């Protein structure tokens, strides 16, 4: 018997310099097939993963940032972004990609996937998880 678990993917690395961000995204997409209660957290340099305007044409690497827009289609609809991490980097929600999902229960109304949370709120969310995957 399968039981739904709360899984959180904790993203703390900038994209491209290391493989962590891309690997996390791959695992999230694979894990989405198992119909669990999935959320992503973007903390520390992890907030750089979802910044808008990424253009990797000059570094010979795949720009995987558009993939975050597809998460909603895989029912990955909770992307928690830590406010303090943004502030330390002089960033705000305006600097992030506009990521949305469509709510089947509300006539496919488009809703924001990104939820801005404080460090304390994120700590609380982590406590509520069954599993935390770190990247």
């Amino acid at each position, binding site marked *: 018997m399968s039981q739904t678990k709360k899984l959180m993917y904790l993203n703390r690395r900038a994209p491209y310099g290391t493989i962590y961000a891309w690997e996390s995204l791959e695992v999230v997409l694979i894990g989405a097939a198992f119909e669990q209660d999935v959320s992503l957290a973007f903390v520390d340099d992890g907030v750089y993963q979802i910044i808008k*305007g990424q253009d990797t044409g000059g570094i010979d690497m795949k720009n995987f940032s558009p993939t975050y827009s597809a998460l909603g289609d895989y029912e990955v609809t909770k992307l928690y972004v830590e406010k303090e991490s943004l502030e330390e980097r002089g*960033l705000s929600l305006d600097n992030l990609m506009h990521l949305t999902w469509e709510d089947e229960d509300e006539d496919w109304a488009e809703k924001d996937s990104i939820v801005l949370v404080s460090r304390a709120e994120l700590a609380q969310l982590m406590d509520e998880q069954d599993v935390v995957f770190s990247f």
Partner: protein
Amino acid sequence: MSILHTVNKSPFEKSSASSCIAHASEGSAVLFYEDGVYAADKRTRFASSVTGAAGVKFYVLGPDLKARGVGEDLLIDGVEVIDYAGFVDLAVEYDKVAAWV
């Protein structure tokens, strides 16, 4: 003997950038590339470390900046954007290269 210092790690994740700047003497240069480019972003809490380094010339690798969505208009004043050929030129111009990995 002037040095070209290179930093390829985020200033938030490792101490490479701050340690590098602390060891960069007058007449030397610092090049930020890969995840190091965030150190050249004027919006961050780290920016004051760069602006406070007197007599040190700062460079940033353009393609790495673009990949990470950091516009050139967001750079700390005085930081010069270079390309890969410029990287090579700097390595030749300075007496030696010190990489802060």
